[in-house]
């Protein structure tokens, strides 16, 4: 789960990671009041779930009240496009206002789950700032790393070593090491999968200061943190995706026109590959998961049908934990309730496949049933007219 910069900074404060005083506002008047209270110059930052905001005009410096007014007016409600939002962009609803810091140096600090080493890896670079991803690919040696032994945790010597290798003077290195340890503690205790401070500024006094804050939470760990669930911002998500999540479905909207309902992420991805392979294009990724109930299936079909882009539905199920009869009941229930005007191609195999096929056949509804993946692909391609 992603959270906003201002939410991440609230967690930083709790863990003693230095941040500036700040305020989150949603109106121009609030913005002015906040900036006046904080003192000028201030930085105004759009709160959206995507990086690269500076490049899209989502970060503005303001030297006085009228500049704040102008910037807040322009930013609130704007459709902010950054390299990470895609062409659709994101609507800006909240602004974070904080005093412009006195920055002597910009570092990069990050933590993530390193699947290769099966450990948390802490990364730091003296080349912080907007272009860290370019640095990572063009000059990987500029990214220093410490791998954390899961049994020992991040040791103080590792945090200091990392800060020291950044070439910082002793006192600054000690301060940065302390922030690294605090961030690590946050990372573990709050079940994060990614944490980034970019830039981690060094002020002219030689103290670290987190200018930006990015935290991605482990969805699987959220059951331990009910208070973190509250940080979810539904405005940042596609309405259909929200509906799907509420029904425990894993749905991602894409830009094609074949609605897919599949059980299992791997088969769902393979189904998308298959659709592309025959020249068509998936309208979505929809994994109903292993333990889907017929209610969930019904909901999934409904989401596909409600998507105006969908010109054909492809249901591809290989029953394991999810039994084909359960699937068939859900599909039939959905079809009975909804007016389905697009062709529905069904491919069914696995546990209780015979009952499943029987339920579909006896429903009296007009499903196109495919015997195997190859046949299904051809049917899909025909349905959307990429072959005839």
């Amino acid at each position, binding site marked *: 789960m992603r959270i906003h910069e201002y939410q991440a900074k609230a967690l930083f404060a709790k863990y003693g990671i230095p941040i500036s005083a700040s305020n989150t506002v949603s109106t121009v008047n609030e913005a002015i009041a906040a900036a006046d209270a904080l003192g000028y110059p201030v930085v105004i930052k759009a709160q959206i779930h995507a990086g690269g905001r500076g490049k899209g005009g989502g970060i503005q410096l303001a030297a006085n009240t009228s500049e704040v007014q102008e910037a807040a007016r322009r930013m609130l409600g704007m459709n902010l496009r950054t390299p*990470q939002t895609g062409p659709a962009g994101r609507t800006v609803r909240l602004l974070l206002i904080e005093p412009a810091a006195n920055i002597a140096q910009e570092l990069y600090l990050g933590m993530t*789950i390193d*699947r*290769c080493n*099966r*450990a*948390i890896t802490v990364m730091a670079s003296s080349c912080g700032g907007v272009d860290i*991803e370019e640095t*990572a*690919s063009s000059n990987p040696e500029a990214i220093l790393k410490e791998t954390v*032994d*899961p*049994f020992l945790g991040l040791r103080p010597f590792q945090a200091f070593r990392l800060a020291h290798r950044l070439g910082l003077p002793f006192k600054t290195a000690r301060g940065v090491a302390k922030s690294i340890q605090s961030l690590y503690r946050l990372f*573990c205790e709050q*079940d994060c*999968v990614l944490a980034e401070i970019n830039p981690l500024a060094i002020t002219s006094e030689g103290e670290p200061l987190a200018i930006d804050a990015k935290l991605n939470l*482990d*969805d*699987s*760990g959220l*059951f*331990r943190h009910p208070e973190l669930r509250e940080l979810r911002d539904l405005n940042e998500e596609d309405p259909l995706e929200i509906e799907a999540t509420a029904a425990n479905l*894993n749905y*991602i909207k*894409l830009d094609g026109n074949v609605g897919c309902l*599949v*059980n*299992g*992420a*791997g*088969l*769902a*991805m*393979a*189904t*998308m*590959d*298959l*659709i*592309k*392979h025959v020249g068509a294009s*998936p309208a979505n*990724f929809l*994994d109903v*998961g*292993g*333990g889907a109930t017929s209610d969930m299936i019904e909901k999934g079909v409904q989401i596909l049908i409600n998507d105006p882009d969908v010109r054909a539905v492809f249901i591809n*199920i*290989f*029953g*394991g*934990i999810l039994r084909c009869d359960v699937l068939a009941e859900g599909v039939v229930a959905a079809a009975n309730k909804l007016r389905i005007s697009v062709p529905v191609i069904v491919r069914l*195999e*696995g*546990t209780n*496949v015979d009952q499943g096929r029987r339920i579909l056949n006896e429903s009296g509804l007009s499903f196109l049933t495919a015997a*195997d*993946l*190859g046949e299904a*692909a051809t049917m899909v391609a025909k349905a959307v007219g990429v072959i005839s």
Partner: protein
Amino acid sequence: MSILIGSDTRVLVQGMTGNEGQFHARQMRDYGTQIVAGVTPGKGGQDIDGIPIFDTVSEGVKQTDANASIIFVPPAFSADAILEAADAGIKLIVCLTEGIPVNDMLVVRKHLDSTGVRLVGPNTPGLISPGKCKLGVMAGYIHKPGHIGIISRSGTLTYEVVHQLTSLGIGQSTCVGIGGDPIIGLTFSDLLCMFEADADTHGMILIGEIGGSAEENAARIIAESITKPVVAFIAGQTAPPGRRMGHAGAIVSGGSGTAAAKIEELRSAGVTVAESPAHIGRKMDEILSN
């Protein structure tokens, strides 16, 4: 022969009295698996179809000499269930649970490394040695005893591949779902080496996914020490970068972990990579026919 499990595998089911545990324990037993014990704290002394239930894994192992365990418990308790099984002397643990926090798995995996206990999963449908032992939730009937080993990060996609093979008359020695999570037990590389050493396995199918570097590592192992033919498929070739496709593992970041990179490395290692998921079985058939 087969790898990991066979007709002498004695299975203990953790979370036996839950809906899933109960249903699949019966399914496994009906397939021919020796289900010797179940564990559910508080239900010790009961039985399900004659299979005795114990309160702790230790008791179950002591009373029944179980040597493998399969875990059907909720995510919050799964890490502990794995550690309990390892502590009780179980040498093969299959954990089906989806949604175990990655922090928990970092600790579990590191611990198992020092014990010699083998973990399949988590977030896996399990594994099966057709005709001998089913330790998972896959539909048994689609399988056929034979000589192809399957290793897969995906659940249902594996069934698809098995189905293709069986339809072509090609049987399987063992099919292993290694699980879709970022931190798992046995990897492609571990299992490729086991299949290489198994005289009854004549070729392997590797079903990968975008994200992570398990397939790249597998390519390295294949180039170095695998002599048997390997067919591979990488799911997610057309997935948009940066979107999460359900498995925590399937996050494409930067240039690494893409389907293209994985496919290239596997091809360089001499692996036959199928472009369409509809052609995986056929590719293996072609190799076996040559």
